[in-house]
């Protein structure tokens, strides 16, 4: 895993390391089992098409969880996720890159914690932000 990041090292505008996902239909089944969301549009192509979709789509909640991994991996062992969320604006599909990204939008200290605010999102191969969102994390201080 990457080196621990510290509050003092972070600046507004910094982009955090990307997390690139590419879901197979098998991963979508594993997610269905892990999350309890068995809605067939995520693994049954005939069903998905019968609802008007062009094919199976990635669960919105899985994209939210991917953004969670993006943040978890960045804050490291000494950091902590406080809040994170996203909106499901665009659909994402299996077997193509789904890029999770984040940019620091602010830093503040509150109640003894070093908080960093970020804009986070998932992006499709066309560069469209399919799940835009925000996060707040706490980072350790070097002091």
């Amino acid at each position, binding site marked *: 895993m990457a080196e621990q990041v510290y509050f003092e090292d972070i600046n507004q505008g910094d982009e955090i390391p990307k997390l690139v996902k590419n879901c197979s239909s098998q991963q979508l089944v594993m*997610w269905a089992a892990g999350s309890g969301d068995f809605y067939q549009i995520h693994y049954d192509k005939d069903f998905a098409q019968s609802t008007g979709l062009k094919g199976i789509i990635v669960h919105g909640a899985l994209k939210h969880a991917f953004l969670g*991994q993006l943040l978890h991996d960045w804050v490291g062992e000494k950091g902590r996720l406080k809040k994170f969320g996203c909106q499901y604006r665009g659909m994402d599909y299996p077997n193509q890159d789904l890029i999770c990204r984040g940019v620091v939008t602010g830093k503040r200290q509150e109640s003894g914690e070093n908080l960093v605010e970020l804009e986070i999102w998932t992006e499709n191969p066309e560069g469209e932000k399919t799940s835009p969102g925000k996060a707040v994390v706490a980072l350790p201080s070097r002091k």
Partner: protein
Amino acid sequence: MTQSSIITDEMRAVIGQESEPQTVEVDRTAVRMFARGVGHTDPVHYDVEVARRRGYRDLPCPPAFLGTPVFNPSQPPRTAYVSFKSPFKRVLNGGTEVEYFDEDICAGDVLTSTSKIADLSERQGSLGPMLIIRFETTYRNQKGKVVAILRGTGIQY
């Protein structure tokens, strides 16, 4: 002619009403399965020794994992929140936010969740009127502490 509101008094009456509490269990297998489904590589979600070395009492939940509601086929299916009769048949998931508090959520915890509709609003979309439902689920652990709040948006149209 102004469009009349699609939000009825009957709908407004459910805002803020808390659902019956539901038991949600956090166990090691579920933590690992969720982590695996996402593709987490950090061993803290899989290896109890690593978790303990890092100060957790057991495997910590990966982000967005809040345990497994207890399923029992002999009990009637329950809606997550106090629901209302909606004129719309189609639903979209508009978004999800999770907020955490001071306590970690780890395997071995037993949580209780209650849900409510926090807000109802409406919008005119290209497909016609849309009902926006913001709901909130509060998770408390076995010590009665709030460990997470899940906020979701549903769009009915």
